[in-house]
């Protein structure tokens, strides 16, 4: 009984902190329509900042708390809203998600830059561990009591804010109908900024409270994920009810401590299970949530614009890509080729996102985790031979892909009835689950029926040999690179063909207007399920190749942040195009890694040259900065680049000049007159100079083509859509926050 009470109190305290973080999520989501994936990272950053003030600079605790929770965090929240979130109106769900993921990854990189992860840091309980009192014979520290008190106060406070104040009522109106609120004299902008300030403050409070309770060690990833767990509580409240959110948070907290207390210690997976529990709960909650109703006219015209190339043009560019890679192979060393191959395999995984998100409008936040599933299948069932002669078989690859597709279907099925955001959350839960339970299953245990020792991820590291299919052996880096590139092109062109087929048009229809597609007789769930499974299969293939080219994979290969970075960079490249997937994959797999290691090497070579270290760290933060800037150009970089170069077709002389210059440089590098880096530099210089030269030679070709009709009607369509039938506004407000 004593033990039970102890676990109950600990569970309630953890639950209260989850509740605080989750209520911040609900608050920002209901007022700005943006689900803040960075909530966990904000909490983490606040915990570090508090440590800096309190223990780094020895400020008194009240001052440090005041600065972090009341001054800095709300300030940061306001700036985030004003500087970034406000620009996301009329963008697709995926753009909004990716921007907050960018902030998350940016804060993680920044924290690792400011607070060297090699130095251990611990936060202590408020008033120390000795300050405690006894309830029913159980010791409760003052810190725990404070956390519980904060939770209760905040639950009541937010409830009162929503129900009883003018500001709160207006905040609920923002999401339902911003235009209507504005017409009635409300100030949606100011309200949303206020909610972001409040949300950031709550994140900071959660971060500062939870660190000492969970052991006190400050770890960037652990803290971020810990608070990210509170998403489960927010979903419990259907992202709008504060009561249910706090209820869910308490269930989470209690379940976690009871598992810790009452699962037999002989169950080796119990501790992994406890860590994965919030994500398992999230998944279960998604199973039981009632179906969203299809609302007409919820999809306003988004700003993203994608054009689909014709098949001949796609084929031409595919051949050009293969040719470029073949030309590069003779001048690259094995290490360079390996790095480029990693990028290409990431690009293949990114193609799964082009299909799912770009064409189908659904979101998968854990594509690399699907790659992990395929890798594990191949490791256990798809290998042949021994030692250096060991290879992946064709059947192994096919089995890995098939299993991944089926797993993908099972993961997606419960969320397909719901809004796109919920599918994104389900995949996030899956990604964290794979890390916490599947890949963490490293110690052998005895299988019940077969009585053999088995672990899913033996010793935490898998050796994955190269594949061999018939006469094609990917043992040499050169063959691996060539074959991966050809596979990318085949899948990429295949996707474009698919998009132009009747299946692709139905996908587009579902993405543009689910309501219209349904009332024309399209079974939405079946279509979503098929596209998700196909996409998971592609991610599986890419994952097998990625693991194989990396040769040695471990928990870090498949950590959720790798997936998130890939998703973000693919959206940055352009989620609607195959070229965007190539760019995203290369940036995630090759680009920024290469930059970081180059700068780090320079720093070591030059005896700790500060500037190189700064640049190395900057290139870690850079991807996040680019991700955050998406609000300005939500269609991604590739359409911008294409628009920039397209007029060059009409200035053939300049184009020929550019190609000639590139050929000369290439030949000089090939004959070893110049080093490899010159090719990179010269190509960059030519790429930048060419449009400028073209413009100087023939300004007419570069003049923007007149498109008055587009501008006129795209202004007209939202206006037509804004003719409200007056109904949804009432409906949404009434059933909210009950």
């Amino acid at each position, binding site marked *: 009984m004593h033990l039970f009470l102890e676990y109950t109190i600990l569970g309630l305290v953890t639950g209260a902190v989850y509740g605080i973080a989750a209520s911040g999520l609900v608050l920002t989501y209901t007022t700005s329509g943006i689900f803040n994936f960075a909530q966990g990272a904000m909490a983490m950053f606040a915990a570090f900042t508090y440590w800096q003030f309190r223990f780094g600079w020895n400020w008194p605790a009240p001052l440090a708390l005041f600065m972090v929770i009341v001054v800095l965090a709300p300030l940061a929240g306001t700036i985030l809203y004003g500087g970034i979130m406000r620009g996301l109106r009329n963008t697709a769900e995926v753009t909004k998600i990716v921007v907050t993921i960018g902030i998350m990854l940016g804060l993680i990189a920044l924290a690792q830059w400011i607070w060297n992860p090699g130095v251990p840091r611990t936060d202590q309980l408020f008033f120390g561990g000795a300050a405690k009192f006894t309830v029913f014979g159980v010791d409760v520290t003052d810190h725990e009591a404070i956390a519980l008190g904060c939770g209760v106060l905040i639950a009541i406070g937010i409830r009162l804010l929503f129900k009883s104040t003018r500001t709160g009522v207006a905040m609920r109106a923002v999401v339902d109908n911003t235009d209507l609120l504005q017409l009635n004299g409300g100030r949606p902008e100011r309200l949303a900024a206020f909610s972001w300030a409040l949300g950031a403050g709550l994140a900071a409070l959660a971060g500062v409270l939870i660190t000492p309770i969970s052991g006190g060690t400050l770890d960037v990833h652990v803290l971020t994920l810990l608070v990210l767990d509170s998403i489960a509580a927010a979903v419990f409240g259907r992202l709008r009810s504060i009561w249910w959110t706090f209820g869910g948070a308490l269930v989470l907290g209690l379940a976690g401590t009871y598992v810790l207390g009452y699962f037999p210690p002989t169950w080796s997976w119990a501790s992994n299970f406890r860590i994965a529990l919030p994500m398992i709960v999230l998944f279960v909650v998604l199973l039981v949530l009632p179906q969203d109703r299809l609302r007409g*006219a919820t999809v306003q015209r988004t700003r993203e614009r994608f054009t689909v190339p014709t098949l001949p043009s796609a084929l031409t560019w595919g051949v050009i890509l293969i040719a470029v890679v073949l030309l590069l192979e003779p001048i690259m060393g094995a290490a360079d080729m390996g790095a480029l191959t990693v990028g290409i395999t990431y690009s293949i995984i990114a193609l799964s996102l082009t299909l799912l998100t770009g064409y189908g409008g659904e979101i998968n936040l854990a594509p690399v985790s699907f790659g992990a599933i395929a890798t594990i299948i191949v490791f256990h069932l798809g290998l042949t031979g021994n030692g250096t002669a060991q290879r992946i078989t064709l059947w192994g690859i096919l089995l890995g892909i098939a299993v991944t597709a089926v797993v993908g279907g099972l993961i997606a099925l419960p969320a397909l009835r719901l809004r796109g955001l919920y599918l994104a959350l389900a995949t996030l839960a899956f990604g964290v689950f794979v890390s916490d339970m599947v890949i963490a299953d490293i110690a052998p245990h005895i299988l019940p029926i077969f009585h053999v020792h088995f672990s899913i991820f033996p010793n935490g590291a898998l050796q994955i040999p190269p594949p061999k299919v018939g006469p094609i052996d990917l043992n040499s880096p050169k063959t691996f690179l060539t074959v991966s590139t050809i596979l990318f092109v085949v899948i990429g062109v295949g996707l474009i063909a698919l998009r132009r087929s009747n299946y692709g048009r139905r996908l587009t229809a579902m993405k543009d207007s689910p*309501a*219209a597609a349904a*009332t024309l007789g399209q079974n939405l769930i079946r279509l979503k399920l098929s596209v998700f499974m196909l996409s998971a299969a592609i991610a599986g293939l890419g994952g097998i190749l990625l693991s194989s080219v990396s040769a040695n994979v471990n928990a870090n290969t498949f950590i959720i942040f790798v997936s998130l970075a890939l998703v973000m960079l693919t959206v940055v490249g352009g989620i609607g195009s195959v070229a965007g997937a190539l760019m995203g994959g290369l940036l995630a797999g090759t680009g920024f890694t290469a930059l970081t290691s180059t700068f780090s090497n320079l720093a070591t070579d030059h005896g700790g040259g500060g500037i190189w270290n700064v640049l190395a760290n900057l290139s870690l933060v850079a991807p996040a900065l680019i991700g955050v800037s998406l609000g300005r150009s939500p269609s991604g970089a590739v359409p911008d680049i294409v628009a920039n170069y397209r007029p060059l077709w009409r200035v053939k002389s300049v184009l020929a000049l550019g190609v000639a210059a590139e050929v000369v440089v290439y030949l000089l590098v090939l004959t070893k007159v110049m080093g490899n880096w010159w090719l990179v530099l010269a190509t960059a210089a030519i790429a930048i100079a060419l449009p400028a030269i073209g413009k100087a030679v023939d300004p007419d070709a570069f003049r923007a083509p007149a498109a008055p009709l587009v501008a006129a009607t795209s202004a*007209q*369509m939202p206006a*037509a859509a804004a003719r409200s039938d007056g109904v949804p506004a009432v409906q949404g407000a009434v059933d909210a926050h009950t």
Partner: protein
Amino acid sequence: MPTLEVTEVCMAFGGAQVLSNVSISVPPGHVTGLIGPNGAGKTTLFNVVSGLLAPKSGQITMEGRDITKAGPAARARRGLARTYQRLELFTSLTVRDNIRVAGEIRNTWGRRGRIDVKAETERIIELVGLADVADREVSEIPTARARVVEVARALMTQPRVLLLDEPASGQTEQETEDFGKLLRQLVSEREIAICLVEHDVSLVMGTCELIHVLDYGQIIASGTPDDVKNDPAVVNAYLGAP
């Protein structure tokens, strides 16, 4: 027997009653009008009939079969199609592909009644008069014509019942006249049942044989154009004194 029969349907959003005991019938081979002032609940009724909203109570039958519990796609497969007052076009597709994809969706229903999508697309484009803009992006054409794209898209599924939500708003007088002719042609050639929500009184009076009038979520009158025109309640609520 009417093709579409709505019986005693009630619908509320929170505390606001938007449809109370609404009963209408839409017979085959005729255009049936549904008129009433803004906010009367016409679009909500369409949403209930097409399965986007579930009614609180009441029954909806099509050709004698109860479809109250069926989802939107299942109703479409029974032969129901609709257009939207707030346009729900597939904005990434051209006009032709918007229409074509509806046929392609129709062909996923099963082997029975499969259509030749390509030929049917061209036939319907010709029928509704969209040939001159067929290859344009659907977001580039004027709203009045975009509404016709919605009609064409609905026709591609070969419906038995067609719900049209203000299809003619924004059209010129000539366009409206042609549109009325098109509706009469559709009902007489294919024996389909059309329910038309429209504010253009002359179009409604000229094409409909039966008119239901909705006000504050209640049917206040049903009958022939002449009955309705002279009904004092309708004059008071919607038409105004002549």
